[in-house]
């Protein structure tokens, strides 16, 4: 088991009587890229701020590289934080912004300016050294914030929604750059986001949170393929959730009368169960080779270039999506309002916990 970079043990954060974070346990391996993900108010930012030392944990312990830092101020934790709004000092030049923490540590003027210059070169902004943050674009400000956070050689970099203020094109570029930097530096990155695509693209470890609890934490691929609750399946996206009753024969009978064959373990017979099927693993009939079927009406057809999204509504009124390859769709095109049958393999059915 790799060494834990950051470890949370029974960490709770209360604001008054409200539990923002409820006794969570988490182990983030050193040198990994971890994404905390969840809807707003799920406790992900509170968790990050407790790791940074900007919020005090109401109870529990926070360990960084094996050292208990629960009661230490931010500066003694070996962490650096990159703020959502970047929080660059508007009255200082970029160079002085980057050099700020060295100045606080009493490093001489020439030395800290030389180091800050080096850091600005690392984020490809040496020519902006003497400008004020207000004269920079959003993407440039972010690089300066990154340089400022990295200059003290932190063991852990904490990023609070770092990409949310950027336009989609820059977001993609910065995403690559963050991943590259993390690999080069070999330090732990903990990144808070509400965008699941960001988490999947970046993370070694995805932590899905809701209402102060960790619902699932694993590699992005595992979380996406095996979401453990309907919430995780919906939040990660790309899943259709079907509800049915477990029959005596070991299948799931849906409201439309179809029996779904499942290879995973099912709960006791006659109980209600929810199952998830990835939307790219469903196809439209005629597909005689697929044992599982779902009757539905077409509610949307969206051409997306490499794939076509078909929106369906089943007899119970639940919405589903199918991602069909362009070739598959145009082999048997469907139109709005058509009654169709969607099919899928027993292997592609994932049983969700309630």
């Amino acid at each position: 088991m790799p060494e834990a970079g950051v470890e949370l043990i029974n960490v709770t954060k209360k604001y008054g009587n409200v539990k923002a974070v409820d006794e969570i346990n988490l182990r983030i391996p050193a040198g990994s890229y971890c994404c905390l993900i969840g809807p707003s108010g799920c406790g992900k930012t509170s968790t990050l701020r407790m790791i940074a030392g900007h919020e005090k944990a109401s109870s529990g312990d926070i360990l960084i590289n094996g050292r208990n830092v629960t009661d230490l101020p931010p500066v003694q934790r070996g962490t650096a934080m990159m703020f959502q709004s970047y929080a660059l000092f508007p009255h200082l030049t970029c160079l002085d912004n980057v050099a700020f923490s060295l100045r606080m540590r009493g490093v001489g003027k020439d030395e800290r300016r030389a180091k800050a210059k080096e850091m600005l070169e690392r984020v490809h902004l040496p020519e902006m050294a003497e400008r004020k943050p207000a004269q920079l674009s959003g993407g440039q400000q972010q690089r300066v914030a990154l340089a400022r956070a990295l200059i003290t050689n932190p063991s852990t970099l904490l990023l609070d929604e770092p990409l949310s203020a950027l336009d989609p094109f820059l977001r993609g570029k910065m995403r690559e750059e963050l991943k590259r930097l993390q690999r080069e530096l070999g330090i732990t990155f903990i990144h808070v986001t509400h965008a699941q695509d960001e988490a999947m693209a970046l993370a070694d470890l995805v932590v899905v949170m809701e209402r102060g609890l960790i619902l699932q934490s694993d590699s992005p691929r595992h979380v996406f393929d095996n979401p453990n609750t309907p919430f995780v399946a919906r939040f990660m996206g790309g899943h259709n959730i079907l509800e049915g009753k477990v029959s005596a024969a070991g299948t799931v009978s849906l409201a439309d009368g179809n029996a779904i064959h499942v290879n995973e373990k099912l709960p006791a017979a006659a109980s209600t169960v929810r199952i998830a099927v990835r939307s790219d693993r469903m196809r439209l009939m005629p597909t005689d080779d697929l044992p599982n079927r779902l009757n539905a009406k077409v509610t949307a057809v969206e051409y997306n270039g490499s794939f076509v999204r078909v929106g369906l509504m089943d007899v119970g009124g639940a919405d589903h999506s199918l991602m069909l390859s362009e070739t598959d769709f145009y082999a048997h095109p469907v139109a709005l309002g058509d009654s169709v049958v969607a099919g899928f393999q027993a292997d592609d059915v994932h049983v969700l916990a309630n």
Partner: protein
Amino acid sequence: MPPDIAIPDVTTAAPKGAVVTGRTESPALAAIMPYLQSLPLWIVLAIFLAIPICMIVVASFWDDQATGMVPSFIWDNYRDALGEWVTWNTYLQTIRYAVIVWALTLGIGFTVAYVLAFHIRSSLWQMVLFQVCAIPFLTSNVIRMISWIPFLGRNGLANQFLMDLGITDHPLEFLLYSPFAVCLAFVHLYTLFMVVPIFNTMMRIDRALVEAARDAGAGPIEVMRHVIIPLSLPGISIGTIFVVTLVMGDFITVQMMSGGQSASVGLIIKNAMSLLQYPEASAQAVVLLLTVLLMVGSILRVIDIRKEL
């Protein structure tokens, strides 16, 4: 085909009609429109600011004779005003008051604004405490000043209290009708003018900046020195301009609280006016105006306050 004919009719004709009926003014009128719209402000400024100042400047060059002012262009009034040792001494005293009062109001005002802006978490309490600071200012200056007199006087509350405690066995004379009393009244009257602009600037400081500084290893003193004070400078300079101009132009506070023992530039002007020496009063007023403008100008050169306006 009918649709081909109908569509151009609908799309082009209707907007055209709207344009023609909606905007009938000529380009020339459009060019002077912004000036016309700001005309009321220019009229107000002209009547209440520019014309009175021009009249004072003009009067300062008139001749002062026993029968009254005579239109003229002479420098005698300025020579009289600036040639006297008393004038220079009075300016020195007034500037000394301004510096002392500025330092005290800055210290108190900054602290009050800082506590209000950064340490009172609930915005309701912030408003309540801010009102507590502001409400006394609904009463007049003179009343708030006079209320010090029974308190500070020879047999006033302050002296009674000090004697009861045994700190002193005879009434302290310097409490009232002294430079001390003048400064006390000034600080009391004008601290709010420091609190409000500094509070405003501080409320605009992003709280994340304080956290970012703490994250970078700054302690409370460094946060104050490297983040809060530099970012509060515009508010500090606006407050400074208020306090300095108010103290420089004051005559009533100095007269009442010093018991007539202390002079100020404002008092010189007031005395000249009560002797009906308007040209001399005008000359003094022009000199005072230039002095204050010089002080304000040098503050503005150091600190950029445009972001606050």
